[in-house]
């Protein structure tokens, strides 16, 4: 994929060159037909009305009707072609984003906020397509200007010059200056965002507000922000009303000028009355479309900005090196940075008062961070990443995607059948998840698991990890949101289900500690001691951490 914003735009457009060319061609024809419409009206006036004969009425009526139909129908055909080219371009960008998310993998962590991702996949994808569309309209405006100028010029050079100078002034000088006046809108839009944020706060925090109060304070705050927005809106109104007014009046001013020039010419007989009315009509149509030429320039700039954001995202790379080739490592997982070592075949429990450094150690062992960590004699970095991912599973606040329960538990992938999935649900005490979804693996889970409670989500994540049946399972606080009774059951079942396999659980819960083969006690991200729960209980500090309020 091109890394340069301009080249990305070109590559997206070029994929549908045929449609783009077709669109430009049809819009050229349509633009010409539009301008010919007042010209044909003028012909009827000159050659029928003023000539005082009905004879040419039929042929000119046919011309007039044909031009009218062509202007409209050919326009739609051209519009359609460009619309399709734009749509294909948008779809292409969405596919590129999809592919890149897979390519960059965990490299997108922290590199992009959810809001930015929303913008990239909607607004920015749209802009990379819509500039094709706007270019088409701008082109049509140019064709109309050219044809109109030629027609007027043929009647009289002065008319042609007046119209051309006017259109150029409106389209390329005054128009862009007017657009600058709209900077008020930027401040306005950010006020809108602030206000929307506050309103969402009210809904998001409604339970809290209902619990402790604060409604009046919020109502007051919202009113203040709403008044600010109103005043910002007044500011926009002041500038924007000039822009809107001029946009509508400038074409009229040009029409007035052309009419004046034309009227003097008609008075002396240099042009016919029909040509005077054609001048009026042609100027009206061309001036009205001169706006499209401004739109063209603006959309190209907007597309370039959007493309720059997209290509910047396309530059994110995976944050874990994937150049290892080794396979078949054996032995304990060792993290030299913390001194943590996970013994094969045992249930280890890692106890610590601080969550963050312990979790970081687990990330290193599962290779979600590059580090000096080893698997037996092999540095983790020297092993093929695919192999590490297959054999070592890190469980924490994993994401739940919008898919069925069966798909969530990976039924159908290597070695997981329905029986295994159901067993994992049982071991994770997640039967209530299963029953709340209609007691079928086809039950749908919504994005982020929002149709489940916090405790259900946690147990479902655990079930998914158990079903995967990885050689090494590293679990961070897998039962922090469940009650003691259930936690006790889970610890018992997980210990049984994973007997003989390597499992490490980060928790200070005695319900897990009582099942542990081996306990590692960490302080400030370093291993302080390890052994059995009973051995470590000799340390007072450890005791107060694990047996809670020992009196």
């Amino acid at each position, binding site marked *: 994929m091109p890394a340069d914003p301009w080249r990305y735009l070109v590559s997206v457009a070029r994929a549908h060159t045929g449609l783009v060319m077709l669109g430009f061609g049809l819009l050229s024809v349509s633009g010409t037909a539009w301008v010919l419409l007042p010209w044909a009206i003028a012909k009827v*006036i000159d050659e029928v009305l003023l000539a005082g004969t009905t004879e040419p*009425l039929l042929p000119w009526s046919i011309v007039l009707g044909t031009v009218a139909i062509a202007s409209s*129908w050919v326009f739609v055909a051209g519009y359609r072609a460009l619309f399709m080219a734009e749509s294909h371009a948008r779809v292409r960008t969405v596919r590129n984003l999809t592919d890149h998310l897979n390519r960059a993998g965990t490299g997108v962590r922290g590199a992009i906020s959810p809001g930015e991702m929303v913008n990239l996949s909607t607004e920015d994808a749209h802009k990379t397509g819509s500039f094709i569309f706007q270019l088409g309209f701008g082109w049509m405006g140019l064709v109309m200007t050219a044809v109109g100028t030629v027609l007027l010029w043929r009647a009289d050079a002065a008319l042609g010059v007046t119209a051309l100078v006017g259109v150029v002034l409106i389209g390329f000088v005054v128009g862009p200056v007017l657009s600058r006046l709209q900077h008020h809108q930027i401040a306005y839009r950010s006020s809108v965002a602030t206000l929307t944020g506050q309103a969402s706060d009210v809904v998001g925090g409604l339970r809290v507000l209902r619990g*402790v109060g604060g409604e009046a304070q*919020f109502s007051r705050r919202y009113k203040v922000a709403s008044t600010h927005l109103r005043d910002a809106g007044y500011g926009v109104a002041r500038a924007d*009303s000039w822009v809107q007014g001029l946009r509508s009046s400038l074409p009229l001013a040009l029409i007035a000028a052309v009419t004046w020039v034309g009227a003097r010419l008609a008075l002396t007989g240099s042009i016919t009355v029909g040509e005077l009315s054609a001048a009026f009509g042609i100027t009206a*149509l061309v001036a009205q479309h001169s706006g499209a030429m401004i739109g063209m320039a603006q959309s190209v700039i907007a597309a370039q900005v959007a493309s720059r954001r997209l290509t910047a995202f396309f530059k994110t790379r995976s944050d874990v090196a994937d150049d290892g080739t080794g396979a078949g490592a054996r032995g304990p997982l060792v993290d030299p940075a913390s001194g943590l070592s996970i013994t094969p075949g045992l249930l280890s429990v890692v106890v610590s008062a601080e969550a963050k450094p312990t979790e970081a150690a687990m990330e290193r062992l599962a290779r979600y961070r590059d580090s000096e960590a080893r698997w037996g004699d092999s540095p983790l970095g020297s092993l093929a990443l695919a192999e590490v991912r297959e054999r070592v599973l890190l469980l924490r606040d994993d994401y739940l995607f919008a898919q069925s329960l069966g798909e969530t538990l990976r039924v159908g992938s290597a070695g997981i059948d329905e029986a295994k999935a159901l067993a994992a649900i049982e071991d994770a005490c997640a039967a209530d998840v299963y029953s709340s979804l209609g007691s079928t693996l086809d039950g749908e889970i919504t994005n982020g698991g929002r149709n489940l409670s916090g405790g259900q989500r946690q147990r479902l994540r655990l079930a998914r990890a158990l079903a995967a049946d990885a050689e090494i399972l590293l679990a961070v606080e897998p039962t922090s949101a469940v009650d*003691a009774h259930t936690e006790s059951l889970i610890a018992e079942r997980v210990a049984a289900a994973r007997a003989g396999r390597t499992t490490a659980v980060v928790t200070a819960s005695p319900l897990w500690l009582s099942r542990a083969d081996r306990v590692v006690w960490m302080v400030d991200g370093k291993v302080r001691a390890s052994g059995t729960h009973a051995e470590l209980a000799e340390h007072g500090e450890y005791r107060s951490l694990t047996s809670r309020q020992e009196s």
Partner: protein
Amino acid sequence: MSANETAGRLPVADRAAIFGAVKRLIVEDRAAFAGVVALYVLAAGAGAALPVMLGDVIDGIGTGWTASRVDLVCGAIVGCVIVQLLLLRTGRKLGYRLGERAAAKLRESFIARVLRLPLGTVERAGTGDLATRTSGDVGAVAELLRKTGPEVAIGAIELVVLTVAAFIVNPLLGLLFLTGAPAFIIAAKRYLRLASPVFLSERAAMSEIAETLTASAAGSQTVAAYRMQAERGEAGYARAETHMGRLKGIIRLQTWFFPATDLTFLTPAVVVTVVGGVWFLNDWVTVGEVVAVAMLTLRLDGPVFRSMMSLSEFQMGGAAMARVEGVHLMPDEVREAAPEGAEVRLDDVTFGYGDGPDVLHGLSLHPRRGERLVVVGPSGAGKSTIARLIAGIDRPRRGSVTLGGAPVADIPLEVLRRKVILVTQEHYVFTATLRENLNLALDVTDPDARDEGEAGDAALYAALATVDARWVADLPEGLDTMLGEEHHELNLAEAQQLALARVILADPDVVILDEATAGIDPGSAGNVEASLAAALNGRTVIAIAHQLQAAESADRIAVVREGRIAEAGSHAELLAAEGAYASLWWAWKGVAA
């Protein structure tokens, strides 16, 4: 759109209610409204004068006008342009301000209403519905009042003025001018019927793309862990494909709509020229009149397209308005009971959510004043339901929940809140300063009493210190630091500490803590609980916990199972009883039973 399609949903206003709301907004600002309409009409008139005067010039040239006479009329045309600019500019400005004022009024009354909605009703409808109305619909209505509405109004006024102008020029030609009307009416009606769903489904497809890709990004680690690349790829491609289908729906619509709209002015342009030409030859009309009306038809292009293109937005704005106005249709809760004292009693309470089965079965619980009662039990036993009933969020089906002798759900919120505060595991940090976040609970509606209501800095810091919130010292601007996603973001533990500090500041008679310390590091959870207990000494504290941290030091423990109190008593009593609590406790303590 019918009100109340589904039971439990928040209501949607019907046509009459929307018209009523619009009428109210107009009446409240009627002088400005009348002025704006007048300005638009005059501006449209000045614009329509151009083709009319062109016709005069053409007929004048035929009847031998002098150059100075032509200059005079052309000068008048220029004058019309200037007048049109000034009228339109003023009209736009005032119209924009009018819309802005109306939007502000509407959204403020909406938020004020939302803040008074009964929580139970909102939860039954799902907060998603309300969130959509708040973030999307309110903005859409503002756009409607500020932009789309005026756009359609200006277009409509211009259409009428141009038609009137055609009739003034020549009533016969005016009739020909109307030949575009059938196309306009048919196209508009059909478009209104078909367009909204087409555009809405396209937007929905776009949101799905955003949701799918955002999920892939947010879940990148999960994708890596479970090697889900292929299915995430398929999901993204499928969303793109759906979107393409929806876009095709739009172009199908526009493929007939654009030519049909064009007919609105192409038909009269051709008819006026041809038929008008024949009439001229019969001396019924002048050349100037034919040219004037033909040019008037070409001017239809702008307003017809502008208003037609705004139609679907206009319609969607109307739908948004129906949802925004809908919240005003909800009945207000009447809460008038007056509690005496602060004693909490649950007697023989049976309760279930919505139409669901009973969650509590004849449960009775009498926390004593100043007692620290811990409610434990497995998930789903009904612990949180007890909390919600005591906090007056829900009403029991049978039995009674009273505070100071009055049914809790009938006590006015302002009174109830000074006596009972519920802190749940759901912690929400508002986008506001730390001070504002803390002062929530001290909310005083009477502005004169606010000085009293707002606690001094020392009290705020003391409350934060009580909950062990050491992170406050690191805040760049102390109590005035802005919190929230886009400013300083608090983690779960910090948010919980903030919520607890609020309670200390509010100092109510009864505090309900529903898993309120679940997210705090195990190392500091104990400290927080201990200091909180000290700070709340003398208050009735009802703590709900699935873990047993808080149980041992409690005055009394109630074990809830399947919607009933299974056991109750002090820690020592329950251990001696060797029941469910005892076995749980020993397991939890890590001592093999």
